[in-house]
């Protein structure tokens, strides 16, 4: 089966189905590259998901709790029932929205060297601090998170190679509840050099965040252009758009901040109880958000994401570490590619309550298919307990998982350069390849992944070194990062300005 792929003149897919496949790709320079990849949905299956999504939008419709949103939908051709607030969205609106949504853009890092271009050739990672609990680094106690936990996590994640974007922590402490999220966002800018993404609370917060970005960038004009901040928009499954959040985003859209569209239907509870229909419904929710924001402001940069879950039928709880979860988010990532839109998919997630084998297994399970199927960003590192519990050492372990998955994504290079027939002829039967020039050149190259945490010593050496495991090494790394001064801090002058903005927000938003 032949299929076109961007950047490649032709591509031969050797087998269908879910199993990791070998793809023989002819590169733009005519070189042959073998890649390990994974495909969840075939082209035909993507068409079926798309058709089901359109049917849901056109016949069932989507409920908007925001009157402003409902008016936008009505003015642009949706059939709106004013009594129920349900808009039935015709296919033409979806097609129009897909035309105006940008296919590529850049999430600006606070440090331009950490800019994130979307789409990406291999997955980047989003620090997941959506929960309210932290596993205390010293005592191991599970407790409510503090601002300091947020800042420590930012510092640790900043040192990870695959880091792309940070989500600030959710906290429940504080005497200034109305300005807490501003404090968390500004502290994230202070402690991280990465792009900051957050779920947005109230329209009143917007001016403070933009003033802070202008202070960091040195000019107001640069705020729109550099895009240091983006927001997460979660629809409320099944098929509802919240009121206040929707209005706040419609206000903010004028600043051209990117929006991550992030439906979270949970198959079996807030979503239908089959993966197929849960994917179709989540896709319909995402398309309805795409329509809303493109109709409100054509050209708004949107990330077509997904954070589907599966239900723990014993408790009714949301599961993020299950094989079904990643099958759905990977499939939705493929739908984003089908539409030509950048994407963030939930993965590298676990339902384990503590660091340990379950966490590692589930995180590897929920990362690999996303990376192999070509997701742009994977949102999940750093947390345990279904994204509810921050664990600093897990950030380092998750970096290792990301490294392994990237290596798998890169696959096997079958270029002429990697054809070492001459070495085989030179060494001949018996002998070894340790002295070959090619071995010397390759032993530190990307051809071979060098783990940072896995132990590969002999038993005796491992015992001599203190019988370390991946978590003990990860803890050492965390200690080391937190003990050294922050690299690339903001200037004292900018920090002073941000402090002043936070003080003002505390006062004015009381």
């Amino acid at each position, binding site marked *: 089966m032949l299929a076109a792929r961007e950047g490649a003149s032709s591509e031969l897919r050797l087998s269908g189905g879910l199993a990791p496949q070998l793809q023989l790709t002819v590169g733009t320079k005519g070189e042959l590259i073998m890649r390990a990849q994974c495909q969840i949905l075939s082209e035909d299956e993507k068409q079926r998901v798309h058709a089901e999504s359109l049917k849901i939008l056109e016949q069932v419709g989507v409920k908007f709790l925001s009157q402003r949103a409902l008016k936008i939908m009505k003015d642009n051709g949706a059939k709106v029932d004013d009594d129920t607030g349900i808009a039935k969205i015709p296919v033409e609106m979806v097609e129009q929205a897909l035309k105006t949504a940008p296919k590529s853009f850049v999430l600006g890092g606070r440090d331009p060297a950490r800019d994130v271009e979307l789409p990406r050739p291999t997955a980047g990672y989003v620090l997941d601090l959506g929960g309210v609990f932290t596993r205390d680094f010293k005592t191991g106690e599970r407790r*409510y998170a503090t601002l300091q936990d947020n800042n420590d996590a930012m510092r640790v994640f900043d040192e990870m190679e695959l880091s792309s974007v940070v989500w600030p922590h*959710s906290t*429940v402490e504080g005497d200034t509840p109305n300005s807490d999220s501003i404090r968390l966002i500004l502290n994230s800018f202070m402690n991280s050099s990465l792009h900051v993404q957050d779920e947005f*609370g109230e329209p009143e917060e917007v001016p403070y965040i933009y003033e802070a970005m202008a202070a960091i960038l040195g000019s107001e004009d640069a705020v729109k252009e550099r895009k240091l901040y983006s927001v997460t928009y979660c629809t409320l499954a099944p098929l509802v758009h919240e009121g206040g959040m929707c209005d706040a985003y419609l206000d903010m859209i004028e600043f051209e901040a990117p929006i991550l569209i992030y439906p979270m239907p949970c198959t079996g509870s807030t979503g239908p109880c089959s993966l197929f229909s849960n994917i179709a419904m989540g896709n319909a929710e995402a398309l309805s958000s795409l329509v809303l924001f493109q109709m409100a402001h054509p050209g708004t940069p949107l990330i077509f994401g997904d954070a589907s879950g599966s239900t723990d039928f014993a*408790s009714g709880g949301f599961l993020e570490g299950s094989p079904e979860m990643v099958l759905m988010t990977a499939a939705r990532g493929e739908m984003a590619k089908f539409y030509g839109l950048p994407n963030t998919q939930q993965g590298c997630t676990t339902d384990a309550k503590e660091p340990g084998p379950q966490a590692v297994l589930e995180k590897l399970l929920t990362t690999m298919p996303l990376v192999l199927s070509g997701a742009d960003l994977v949102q999940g590192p750093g947390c345990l307990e279904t994204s509810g519990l921050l664990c600093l050492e897990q950030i380092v372990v998750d970096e290792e998982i990301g490294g392994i998955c990237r290596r798998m994504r890169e696959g096997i290079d079958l270029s002429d350069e990697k054809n070492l027939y001459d070495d085989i002829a030179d060494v001949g039967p018996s002998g070894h390849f340790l002295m070959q020039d090619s071995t010397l050149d390759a032993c530190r190259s990307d051809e071979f992944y060098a783990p940072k945490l896995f132990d590969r010593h002999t038993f005796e050496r491992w015992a001599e070194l203190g019988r370390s495991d991946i978590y003990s090494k990860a803890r050492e790394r965390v200690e080391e990062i937190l003990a050294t001064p922050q690299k690339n801090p903001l200037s004292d002058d900018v920090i002073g300005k941000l402090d002043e903005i936070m003080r003002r927000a505390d006062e004015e938003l009381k």
Partner: protein
Amino acid sequence: MSIEDIFQSILQLKRGEIADLVQAEIDAKTDVGVILEQGLINAMGEVGDQFTEGKLFVPEMLRAAETMKIGLEVLRPLLIEADINPRGTVIVGTVKGDLHDIGKNLVGMMLEGAGFTVVDLGVDVEPKAFLDAAGENQAELVAMSALLTTTMPVMAQCIEQFKEANMGARILVGGAPVNQDFAIKISADGYSSDAPGAVELAKNLVPA
């Protein structure tokens, strides 16, 4: 036909059969209090136990509760006539600003199964609405849910208002970001991390 058949119809999730089974017991002049306690409530007690042990799944538990409710509807006119009041009344709702309702619905269904009369105020519920509903229904309990850190403080406001109004209803709180410490801090009468735990709490606070 026997009380045991009613009990079993709930455990076997036979919602199509229970109305006839309850009617047959009524026709056989079995005491309505006995049908309620030994047939319906005991069955839901067993369902609750099996659910807690992980033997029953949520969709099964909900179907059992639905089956029980169909039986209860048949019995209700006679219960009113005989002045038999099931366990007590609970007001349930998700607090203002929050639209998440699955956990709250689960708790409501299980409380009904345990014999409580449940008044469900839905989602995005103002503290005053909890207060009014508790007064109007002379509720023994109020169970509030929140899934967002931004809406947790509403629980505290609500408890404050109950105190100011000198309302006697006991207040239970729950939801993913809530924990025991938080419940103590805002002076709630109880916290549970899951629905069966909430029912246990309710039973302890309002003994039969």
